[in-house]
């Protein structure tokens, strides 16, 4: 039973190997010049010592939330994708309602400006 997971585990190990490898290689091979700016922790291009309140921007959060919600929606598609042949018309209508409802959600968010970055 577990053999089926061999493929998944191999792929998993390969991914971790490459990631660690890259980090290891850069630290080993890369030139090491230590000066002030470089030592600072990287914060997506934002300056560090700034009062939290001012630089608080919500677009990060909005993107993340929409990612979560539409991810769930995508997950609903997996079983449907496999079974929709067997479910026939009923399955199709069922999923149609699902998509319509979440479609409304999408246009709402889109027009409301939740998606645009600035």
């Amino acid at each position, binding site marked *: 039973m577990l053999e089926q997971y061999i493929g998944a585990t191999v792929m998993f190990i390969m991914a971790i190997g490459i990631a660690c490898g890259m980090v290891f290689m850069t630290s080993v091979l890369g030139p090491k010049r230590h000066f002030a700016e470089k030592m600072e922790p990287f914060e997506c291009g934002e300056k560090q010592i700034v009062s939290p309140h001012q630089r608080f921007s919500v677009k990060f*959060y909005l993107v993340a939330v929409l990612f979560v919600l539409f991810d*769930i929606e995508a997950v609903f598609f997996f*079983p449907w994708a496999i079974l929709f042949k067997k479910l026939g018309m009923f399955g199709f209508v069922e999923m149609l309602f699902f998509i319509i*409802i*979440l479609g409304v959600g999408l246009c709402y968010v889109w027009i409301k400006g*939740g998606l645009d970055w600035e």
Partner: protein
Amino acid sequence: MELLIFYPLAGFCVLMGLGVIISSSPINSALSLIAMMMGLAGVFVLQQAHFLAILQIIVYAGAIMVLFMFVIMLLNLKSAEEDTWSIRPQNTYVSVLTGFLALGALYKIACVISQAKLDSPAAVPDDFGTVVRVGTTLFTDFVLPFEVASILLLAAMVGAVVLAKNKID
């Protein structure tokens, strides 16, 4: 043989769970939560609920924890300056009493469950946890929950945008 896998996995999950509530910096607790969820995915696999194991990784570890990390970054929460553990003096009695009561109750329940005659489960047909079987039940028996779930997601979407959008026209 499976017990050999079950015990370390369970131990790992419990450890990671404790890590969530013990570690002082929220980032550490978030990371240990992700680890715990991975562990749980393993437990689901052990139960041959493969579809749900994958779901656990995609939905929980993948999406929800990402959201948590975003928010932690957003709110720029450094390691908690206050002491993580704090029981306010006023209700020390209440908490101690509750602790004892809870322990007593849990002990009784635990020993009842342990010698309950829940014998080991019968061998489960190999298509038990697969996507096909779960999908069929989902789309035939539980059509209404499926549709209501979409309403729920829509409501959550609207709510999130209403509350979080910074400039409301």
